[in-house]
């Protein structure tokens, strides 16, 4: 039997190949952050303060959409189609299979973050990220929390037909309230409190430190990191307790 590392690599490469085969999905996956950047770049063009908000905001949204949204959607699809159950009947260890799915999602996160970094440098006067360590730490923490929460959410989705409604029902309010498109400072107090307790606002807070000069080093964002860490723990508990390999029987 192949070693787990070799099996994980093979599973990852297979998932990547399948990802690129679904061309329209792959295309829009990478076009989406670019469209948002172009639109908001045009809207707030010339106002550096606002560009400084938009770029880390879009980066945070990218982390969430490539992990949380994509995994909740894919896991629901695979479960309802019976792929998960079939895989579970083979000697491939479950962890290797799920690891392959996670690495596939994380690769998309890395590509999207790279797109945002390059766009920030070329079109938004941001330069290269002044705090790359902060950027990397927060991307990694965000990926972990949102991937686990996405896997957990799939358990709450009863059927594939209801997946878009449930996922968008979470995703859209969270990106609106968390300051993807505006500075959270302008949000009413109670909404800001809610946003700061959710994982996306702290992620954008840390990414702002990574992308924009003058927001201090990683020590200035430790509270935000702790909130993301808390959500990652919640994600671990929910994902382990609730994960289902089989389609629901109606």
């Amino acid at each position, binding site marked *: 039997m192949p070693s787990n590392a070799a099996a994980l690599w*093979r599973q990852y490469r297979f998932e990547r190949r399948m990802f690129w085969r679904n061309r329209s999905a792959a295309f829009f996956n990478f076009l989406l952050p670019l469209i948002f950047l172009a639109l908001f770049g045009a809207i707030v063009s010339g106002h550096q303060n606002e560009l400084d908000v938009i770029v880390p905001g879009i980066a945070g949204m990218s982390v969430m959409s490539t992990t949380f949204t994509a995994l909740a959607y894919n896991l629901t699809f695979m479960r309802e189609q019976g792929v998960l159950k079939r895989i579970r009947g083979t000697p491939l260890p479950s962890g290797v299979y799920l690891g392959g799915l996670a690495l596939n999602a994380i690769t998309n996160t890395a590509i999207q973050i790279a797109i945002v970094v390059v766009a920030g440098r070329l079109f938004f006067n941001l330069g290269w990220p002044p705090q790359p360590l902060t950027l990397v730490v927060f991307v990694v923490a965000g990926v972990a929390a949102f991937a686990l929460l996405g896997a957990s959410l799939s358990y709450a989705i009863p059927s594939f037909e209801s997946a878009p409604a449930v996922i968008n029902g979470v995703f859209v309010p969270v990106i609106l309230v968390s300051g993807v498109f505006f500075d959270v400072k302008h949000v009413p107090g109670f909404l800001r409190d809610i946003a700061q307790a959710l994982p996306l606002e702290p992620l954008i807070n840390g990414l702002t430190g990574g992308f924009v000069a003058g927001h201090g080093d990683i020590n200035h964002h430790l509270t935000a990191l702790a909130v993301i860490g808390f959500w990652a723990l919640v994600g671990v508990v929910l994902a382990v307790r609730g994960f289902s390999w089989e389609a629901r029987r109606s």
Partner: protein
Amino acid sequence: MASVEPAIEVRDLRKSYGELEAVRGIEFTVRRGEIYGLLGPNGAGKTSTVEILEGYRERSSGHVSVLGFDPGDRPRELRARVGIVLQSSGIYNYASVAESISHFAHFYPHPRDVDEVIELTGLGEKRDARARTLSGGQRRRLDLALALIGDPELIFLDEPTTGFDPAARRGAWQTIRSLRELGKTVLLTTHYLDEAQELADRVAIVKGGRILAEGSPSELGVGRGSRYRVAYANGDGEATVVETDDPTRLLHELTGAALARGEQLRSLSVTRPSLEDIYLELTADA
């Protein structure tokens, strides 16, 4: 030697879902190299039983052994030695037939040759077709190919021909028979009588979570009360059916009486109950 030990042993198996007791004390043994059929209507407890043996479900109580392992522990070695064809299971839609099979081959320690399995399952013409373009029957053959690629000793087939047209069923049956020639053990669940009769060496009829009868398809026909059915048209042309354990004596009496009266016994037939009769008798709601 391993081959002495049965492939599957089930003793007093029980499975409850809350209040509902789906499996109520099922017992059977599947010998190495045989095709064993679990036959019964939907909701009889077949799928629950098989999914416990496949390691998908935990049993409530009872003893279960598959190739000497407890499937409840889901040992990796056991999963490497069985092949599972579920009633419906998804596949990577964007992978070709050959790609899927060769990807799955890497899950196993001693896989069979990919081309050989493609040949065996009759997918040669479709080897480069994406799974999403396959017909229902072709997908089913791909299911079988993915179950066979690891060169399993034991294969679970859950309703393998549901939804097939008659020609496709014959083809699938041929493939399943070829598994026996390869020395494989097969546990087949089906609600088709002809399928059980055609393929299985032994059949268990399952209803309400229990096994109602077990034996070879022909034994089941004779075994139950050893009833023979003698039918004829009497002197007035009325159809008459008599059931008996001793058809020799009955025929002697009937034909003797008819000869004495100078009549013929028209439409005379002697039949044993078919598996279908047994099945319908056993599974009818009394």
